């Protein structure tokens, strides 16, 4: 679910740039360090007022994210593969994940030297599969089939399904790294996009209206069965497992619940990583993060444009983008962006996810949420003003004006409170309490949880809930202790 500004927007910048031959070299940090100092000099004194300060800080954030994205795309160092060895936890006696601040952890993730050693490459196959025999709207032609990936062991092994977080793709950073860890630990790995991802909505959502925990679970289950149908001729599987992070963690819980009835996979174990407790609380929190934009949500485009402008000022002074991951963290230490800026960036990232999800769904169902009901899109149609509208609406707008009315029409008795209650782990609390197979990995300071909500996990799961003291929302997933724990859950 932590698909940040970087993960989406900036990788675009990088990619679009690289399309035209903009290559990033590997690097020494010193020069950029110097540049940064110059930049600091340039900024201090030239502008006044907290808005400029916050924009400046955001701009640093943005720059740093840009650098992160580039680093991730371009020049990751190559750890050596190490066979089926376990991932050793760090030697430190206490949990030494480096960021105490939950916003910082959520934005920055895990610095290289704290990460579990993962193989650079695994034999990953990217494939497409047809889930429904149906026509998709013309504008969504490229998403008629579901994209997914798998990596298979040569011998009999357990198979693990990975479910991505909100708006995230099967080949996003989180699923990719989890896939490497599980493959390295000897599992067959199948990676699936979130049911809120455009490609999933178009190809694999029965209703075209994502976000309902039970319906999403049915959709995911169908996808798993179809993929398994293709793979079972190729491999021998000893057991089935499932895991997911963020919204994917919530999905994994309901998929496991559904599996008790369907019994196709009989999952032996499931791990929920940083799931929301009540989905509605989490989406409300995320929507509200945009209020941290200087001047409010109205200024979203302005916020973006200012960021870009400020980046330009620094970028001009950087004769060479000498990038390394260390620089990212050094820069962050030097800059120390405020929580408001970080929250705004997190909010923007999720806003992009919600815009993508809502507009895709609207195109699928012709519900008249953003696009007029009787207007249709061709392959060449420009979204025009609908684009701007989509980015102005949040998850909660989607819930109240589109999602709830849709479900009320199917079930006229349904109240809003009931629907909100359904979208919650509490809804299947009794099952979760007794389901020994389900474990949880979470963080005390996860920012998608309301205060106190974290206590739900030890209360319901007891020893099966591993709560780390820090890590924000999914920020510590690549941290070596966490990877070791993840793998060990399924090794027991």
């Amino acid at each position, binding site marked *: 679910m932590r698909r940040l500004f970087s993960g989406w927007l900036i990788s675009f910048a990088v*990619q679009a740039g690289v399309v*035209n*031959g903009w290559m990033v*070299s590997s690097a020494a940090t010193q020069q950029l360090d110097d540049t940064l100092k110059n930049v600091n000099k340039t900024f201090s004194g030239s502008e006044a007022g907290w808005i400029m300060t916050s924009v400046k800080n955001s701009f640093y954030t943005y720059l740093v994210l840009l650098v992160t994205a580039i680093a991730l795309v371009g020049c990751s160092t190559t750890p050596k593969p190490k066979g089926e060895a376990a991932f050793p936890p760090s030697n430190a006696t206490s949990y030494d994940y480096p960021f105490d601040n939950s916003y910082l952890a959520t934005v920055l993730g895990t610095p290289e030297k704290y990460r579990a050693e993962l193989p650079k490459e695994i034999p990953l196959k990217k494939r497409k599969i047809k889930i429904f025999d149906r026509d998709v709207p013309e504008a969504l032609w490229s998403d008629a089939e579901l994209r997914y990936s798998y990596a298979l062991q040569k011998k009999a092994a357990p198979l693990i399904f990975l479910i991505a977080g909100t708006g995230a793709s099967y080949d996003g950073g989180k699923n990719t790294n989890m896939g490497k860890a599980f493959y390295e630990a000897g599992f067959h790995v199948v990676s699936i996009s979130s049911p809120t991802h455009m490609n999933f909505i178009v190809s694999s959502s029965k209703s075209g209206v994502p976000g309902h925990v039970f319906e999403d679970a049915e959709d995911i289950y169908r996808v798993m069965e179809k993929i398994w149908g293709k793979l079972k001729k190729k491999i021998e599987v000893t057991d089935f497992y499932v895991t997911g992070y963020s919204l994917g963690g919530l999905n994994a819980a309901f998929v496991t619940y559904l599996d008790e009835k369907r019994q196709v996979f009989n999952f032996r174990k499931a791990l929920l990583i940083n799931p929301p407790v009540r989905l509605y609380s989490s989406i409300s929190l995320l929507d509200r993060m945009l209020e941290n934009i200087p001047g409010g949500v109205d200024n979203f485009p302005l916020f973006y444009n200012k960021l870009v402008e400020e980046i330009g000022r620094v970028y001009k002074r950087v004769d*060479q983008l000498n990038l390394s991951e260390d620089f990212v963290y050094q820069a962050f230490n030097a800059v120390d962006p405020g929580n408001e800026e970080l929250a705004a960036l997190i909010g923007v990232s999720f806003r992009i996810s919600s815009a993508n999800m809502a507009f895709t769904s609207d195109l699928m169902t012709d519900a008249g949420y953003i696009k007029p009901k*009787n207007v249709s899109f061709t392959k060449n*149609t*420009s979204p025009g003003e609908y684009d*701007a509208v989509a*980015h102005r609406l949040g998850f909660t707008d989607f819930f109240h004006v589109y999602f709830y009315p849709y479900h009320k029409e199917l079930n006229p008795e349904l109240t809003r409170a009931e629907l909100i209650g359904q979208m919650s782990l509490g809804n299947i609390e009794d099952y979760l309490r007794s389901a020994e197979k389900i474990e949880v990995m979470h963080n005390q300071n996860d920012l998608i949880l309301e205060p106190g909500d974290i206590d739900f996990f030890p209360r319901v799961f007891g020893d099966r809930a591993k709560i780390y003291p820090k890590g924000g929302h999914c920020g510590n997933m690549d941290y070596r202790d966490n990877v070791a724990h993840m793998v060990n859950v399924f090794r027991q």
Partner: protein
Amino acid sequence: MTTAKNKFPAALLLLMGVLAFTGCSTKPVLPEGEDVIPPDFSAERVLGKDVEGLHEEAISDPWEGFNRSIYRFNYRFDKYIFLPAVGAYQAVTPDIAEKGIHNFFRNIQDVTTLINSILQLSFDKTMHTTTRLMVNSTIGLLGFINVASDVPRSDEDFGQTLGHWGVGTGPFLVLPVMGPSNVRDGIGLGVDWYALKEIRDRTTDLETWQELTWDILKALDLRAHTAFRYYETGSPFEYEWVRLLYTTKRKLDVER
């Protein structure tokens, strides 16, 4: 063979011209005789009068229909030709050779950077690039080894040079195969390509098949180092994002 190669860009231009004039509407389709049924969230309701949309800023895109068509063409070209070829290239080439080839073409790219650094009268960039070229082309064995990795590297092209001297971008343009661009950068690309070709013809004695291998390897290397995949961003606004971010990126490139 040489003539065929020279005709290629001309044919493309012609194709683009034809497509641009035949046009492709970017308007949504409303059944005849019907009025638009207002959606739950109309633009009037949601957007304040003075609120500017994120993708609405002044990026000129009068040929959007044509651009979107080429965008789709590029996806198909990628899918059926380019990416499979890159896959095959990576499968048969040892990693060390791939790396060497990549360095080689980056060294060649430094020639373009040098020319444009001079044209921009940028002393630092010219000095750095000259150093890189001299060291890498000699000690670095024609660029296969990036010996001068400590010398700052920049990427300057003729599009940036034009921008440097105040030439505007012109309308946004999606080039066949090459992807997002604009009129200025598209022209720049042509100029850089021609200059490099002239330099190669005058400094080397390559057979046609050798030149062809060179060109193909260059294309494969470029695509292999480009992470972007068309229609895989999970966004129904992908075209708008690419347009915005490309334009932003180039603006920053010119300014620096």
